[in-house]
C-alpha cells in the first residue's frame, strides 16, 4: 500500500465544488439543530433586509411624492423595527455558527489524530512529521475559517441574491432580465476557473506543509547542525523551501484575488444597465420613479452579495483544498487489518515464522524464506552482523510490519487475528532508541499499562520493589518523579533504555523482545537487568538481540541472522564460529 500522501494526490481525480461542499457539510452533520437555527435566523434577517427597499420605494411613490409626511414617519418606524430584528437574528447566527465551527474542527482534529495513531509504521516512514503537523493544524484551520466566517455568509448572500432576483423580475420582467445578464456571465466565469483556483490552493498548502517539515527537521536535530556548523546549509535549505512556498502562495493569491475585481466590474455594469434601461422605460412611461429607486437598491442588493460571494468563494476553494488533503489522510486504511476466524491450534510454540518473506520496498527483499519456532519460557538470542536483518525480524515478530508472504503464528493463531490491544499485551518490544513522553519517569513507565496505570507514587514504588526494579530508579535524580522534558532530551540514551526496560517488564508480556535494548547501559547495571529478566515468570519467552556475548551466553537457543536468512546455531560455540568465519554482507 502506498502511504505517501503527496504522491497519492497526483493520482486522484479532482472532484467538483459541489461534491466537495457536500463532504464538508457532512462534517457538521451532528450539529443539525444549531445549523437549522442559524439558517432560519439568516432567512429572517435576509428577508427583512430584502423587504426594506420595496417599502422605501412604496413610501416614495405613495407618500413622498404626494406629500403625506405622516405616512413617511409610520413607514420609517416599521423599517427601524425590521432592521433591528434583522440585526439581532444575524448576531445570534454568528454566535451559533462560530460554536458549530469550533466544535467541528475540534472533532476533526481528534479524528485525524486518532487516524494517525492507527496507521502502521510504514506510513511514518513515508511522510514527514512536519507535513503531518501542518495537515492537523494549518489545513483544519482553513476549514474552521470557512465554517465560522464564510459558510453562513455564503448562504445569506445566496438567499439575498435569490430574493433580490425575484423582486427584480417581479417588479419588471424586462428590466429584471437585462439586469441579470451580467450575473450569468459571472456564473459561467466562476465555474470555469474554480478548479484551477483550487489546484493552486492545494499546491500552496502542500508547499507550506513542506516548509513546516523543513522547520521540524532542523529543530529536532539542532545539535548536529550546530556541532557541524551547518547553520548556513540549513538556512539555505529553508530559504529554498520558503522561496518555493512564497511563489506558490503568490500564484494562489493572484488566483484568489481574481474573483473580486471581475465581480465588481460586472456589478457596475449591471447598475449601468438598470439606470439607462430604467430611464428609457420611464420615458416610455412603463415604470415609476419610486420603482426605479427600489430597483436600484435591489440591484445593489443583488450584486453586493455577489461581490461578497467572490471573497467567500475564495475561502471556499481554500477550505476545499484543505479538506482534500485531510480526507486523503482519513481515507488511508491501515494495511495491518485484523483477520477474523483463525482457529487456535494447540501448540507448544509461542511464536512461529512460516516461510516468511519481507522487504520494506517491493524491489528489495530483506528476509528470505524465514522459518523458526519460539517455545514458551525459553530465551532466544538473535546474533549477526549489522544490517543482517535482526531488527527487521524483531519488528515483524511484534507486527510492526506484515510479511510480504508467509505467515506468523502467535499462540497457534495467525498474528493478524489479534487486535492491537491483545497483541501488545502479549508482546513487549524494547526498541534500540526508545521513545519517551514529556512527563515523569513514573508516567513513562506506566504508560499503556492497563493494570497499573492509575497507580500513585506509593503503590507504584511497591510494585517496582516487588519486581526487583528499584535499583534501576537510582540513576534518576529524583527517582520515579524525575521530570522528563522534550521527549527525553534531558536523559542519556542509557537512562532512556532503562525506562523502556521497566515499562516492558511491568507489563508482563508473554514474549519480550529486547533489540539491543541495553547497548548503551554500563555493564554493571546490565548485570542487574539480567537478574531482573531472570526473575520474570517462567513462561515468559525472551528474544534478545545484542552484540555483547554475556547477554547471549544464557540463551537456550541462538539464531544467526545474516543477509536476510535466519539459521539456528546448534550451540554457543557454533554461533561463535559463524560470527567469526562467515563473510559479512552488509
Amino acid at each position, binding site marked *: 500500500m502506498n502511504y505517501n500522501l503527496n504522491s497519492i494526490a497526483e493520482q486522484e481525480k479532482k472532484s467538483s465544488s459541489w461534491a466537495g461542499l457536500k463532504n464538508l457539510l457532512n462534517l457538521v452533520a451532528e450539529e443539525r439543530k444549531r445549523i437549522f437555527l442559524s439558517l432560519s435566523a439568516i432567512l429572517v434577517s435576509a428577508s427583512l433586509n430584502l423587504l426594506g427597499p420595496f417599502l422605501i420605494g412604496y413610501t416614495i411613490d405613495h407618500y413622498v411624492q404626494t406629500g403625506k409626511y405622516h405616512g*413617511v414617519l409610520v*413607514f420609517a418606524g416599521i423599517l427601524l423595527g425590521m432592521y433591528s430584528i434583522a440585526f439581532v437574528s444575524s448576531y445570534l447566527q454568528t454566535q451559533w455558527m462560530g460554536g458549530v465551527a469550533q466544535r467541528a474542527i475540534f472533532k476533526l482534529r481528534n479524528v485525524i489524530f486518532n487516524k494517525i495513531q492507527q496507521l502502521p509504521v510504514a506510513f511514518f516512514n513515508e511522510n*514527514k512529521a512536519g507535513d503531518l503537523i501542518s495537515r492537523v493544524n494549518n489545513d483544519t484551520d482553513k476549514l474552521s475559517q470557512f465554517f465560522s466566517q464564510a459558510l453562513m455568509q455564503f448562504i445569506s448572500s445566496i438567499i439575498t441574491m435569490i430574493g433580490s432576483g425575484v423582486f427584480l423580475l417581479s417588479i419588471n420582467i424586462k428590466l429584471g432580465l437585462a439586469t441579470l445578464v451580467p450575473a450569468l456571465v459571472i456564473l459561467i466565469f466562476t465555474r470555469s476557473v474554480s478548479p484551477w483556483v483550487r489546484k493552486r490552493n492545494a499546491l500552496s498548502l502542500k508547499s507550506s506543509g513542506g516548509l513546516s517539515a523543513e522547520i521540524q527537521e532542523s529543530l529536532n536535530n539542532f545539535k548536529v547542525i550546530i556541532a557541524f556548523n551547518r547553520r548556513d546549509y540549513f538556512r539555505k535549505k529553508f530559504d529554498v523551501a520558503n522561496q518555493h512556498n512564497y511563489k506558490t502562495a503568490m500564484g494562489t493569491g493572484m488566483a484568489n484575488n481574481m474573483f473580486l475585481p471581475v465581480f465588481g466590474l460586472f456589478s457596475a455594469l449591471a447598475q449601468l444597465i438598470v439606470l439607462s434601461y430604467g430611464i428609457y422605460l420611464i420615458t416610455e412611461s412603463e415604470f415609476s420613479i419610486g420603482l426605479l429607486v427600489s430597483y436600484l437598491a435591489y440591484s*445593489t442588493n443583488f450584486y453586493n452579495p455577489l461581490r461578497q460571494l467572490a471573497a467567500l468563494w475564495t475561502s471556499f476553494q481554500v477550505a476545499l483544498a484543505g479538506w482534500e488533503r485531510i480526507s486523503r489522510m482519513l481515507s488511508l486504511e491501515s494495511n495491518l487489518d485484523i483477520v477474523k476466524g483463525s482457529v487456535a491450534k494447540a501448540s507448544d510454540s509461542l511464536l512461529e515464522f512460516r516461510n516468511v518473506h519481507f522487504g520494506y520496498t517491493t524491489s528489495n527483499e530483506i528476509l528470505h524464506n524465514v522459518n523458526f519456532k519460539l517455545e514458551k519460557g525459553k530465551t532466544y538470542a538473535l546474533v549477526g552482523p*549489522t544490517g543482517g536483518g535482526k531488527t527487521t525480524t524483531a519488528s515483524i515478530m511484534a507486527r510492526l510490519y506484515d510479511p510480504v508472504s508467509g505467515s506468523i503464528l502467535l499462540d497457534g493463531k495467525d498474528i493478524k487475528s489479534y487486535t492491537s490491544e491483545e497483541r501488545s499485551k502479549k508482546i513487549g518490544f524494547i526498541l534500540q532508541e526508545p521513545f519517551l513522553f514529556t512527563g515523569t519517569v513514573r508516567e513513562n513507565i506506566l504508560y499503556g499499562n492497563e493494570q497499573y496505570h492509575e497507580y500513585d507514587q506509593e503503590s507504584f514504588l511497591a510494585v517496582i520493589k516487588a519486581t526487583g526494579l528499584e535499583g534501576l530508579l537510582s540513576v534518576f535524580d529524583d527517582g520515579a518523579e524525575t521530570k522528563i522534558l522534550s521527549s527525553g532530551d534531558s536523559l542519556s540514551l542509557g537512562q532512556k533504555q532503562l525506562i523502556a526496560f521497566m515499562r516492558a517488564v511491568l507489563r508482563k508480556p508473554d514474549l519480550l523482545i529486547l533489540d*539491543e535494548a541495553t547497548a548503551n547501559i554500563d555493564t554493571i547495571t546490565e548485570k542487574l537487568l539480567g537478574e531482573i529478566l531472570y526473575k520474570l515468570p517462567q513462561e515468559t519467552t525472551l528474544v534478545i538481540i545484542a552484540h555483547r556475548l554475556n547477554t547471549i551466553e544464557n540463551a537456550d537457543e541462538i539464531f544467526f541472522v545474516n543477509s536476510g536468512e535466519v539459521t539456528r546455531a546448534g550451540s554457543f560455540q557454533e554461533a561463535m564460529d559463524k560470527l567469526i568465519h562467515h563473510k559479512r554482507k552488509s
Partner: protein
Amino acid sequence: MILVLGGHYVINGKMSLGDFAAFNSYLALLIFPILIIGFMSNVIAQATASYGRISEMLERPDTIETGQLAANLTGAIEMKDVNVNYGEKPVLKHIDFSVRPGSRTAVIGPTAAGKTQLLYLLSGLIKPDSGVLTFDGHQIDEYKSESFYQKLGFVFQDSILFNMSIRENITFSETVTDESLQRAIETAELKDFMESLPDGLDTSVSERGLSLSGGQKQRIMLARALAINPNVLLLDDFTARVDNQTETRILENIQRNYPNLTLISVTQKIAAVEHYEQIILLMQGEILAAGTHKELMNTSPEYVQIFNSQKSTSNYEL
C-alpha cells in the same frame, strides 16, 4: 432616517427626487465597507496577537560571534576545575584532565555519569558554569566557530539522520571534497553497503532513517564526522551498535587514514580501549580515576570491578 429626513426635504421641495435616489444608492455603497471595517478589526486583533508571538522570538538576543582566532586544533585539550550544573543539580564536578595531541582517550563510567555532557562540553554545545576548558591554550569562545567546527568531529550517541540522500547526510554541504568523502566512507566500513544500494550514495534516507539498521546509521554518523577531516574526533558510545569485528576494523581504519587524529571516545567496553594512552573513569559527575589501563587496574577498585564484569565478554572477541 434617510427616508424620514429625505422624505421631508423632498416634500418641502428642498431636495429633488433624483438626489434622493442617488443618496439612497450611496448609502447602500457605504454599508458594505462598514461591514468590512468590523471584519478587519477582528483580523487586526488576531494579527497583533500573532505578531506578539513572533517578535518575542525575534527579539531573543542572537548568540554573539566573538571569536577571531582561526582554529587549527592540534588536539591539546585541557580542563581545569570545570563544573556544569543543570538547574540546581551538578552534572559535572571539578573535572580536571588534559589530552595530548594525537593521543587516544577513553571515558568510561556507568549510565548517567555525565559522559555525554563531557563531550557536549568539549564540542561547545554547553558551556562550563565555572572552570576553564582550553584547546591549544585558548577557550572555545576565542575561536571562530566556523573554523573550530571544521576541526572537530562529533559522533552522537543517537543516530540523527536527515531526510536527504546519504551523500548529503554525510557531506552536509558542497565544501567536502570527493576525496575526503571516499576516505570517510571507507574508514566507516560503509563502502560495500553503499555499493549494494540501488542508487549508491544518492539513495535517500527517510526522515527517521528507519530503513537503515542501527549499525548502519551509526556508521553514517561516523562518516559524517570524518568527512570534514577533523583533528579532534569525539565518539559517544559509538561502538554500542556495531559488532566487534566491524568495530575493530573501523578503529584500525581510523588509525591508518587519520594518523594525527586526537580521539576522545566514550564507551562501555574496556577491551576495545585497553591500549589507549589514557582512560578516564567517570562516576556521578566526578573523575574517579584516570590513567592507562595498567595504572587503573592497580589503583582503582571501581575500575577493576567494571573490568571484571566485562571479563566474560572479553574472553570472546568476535
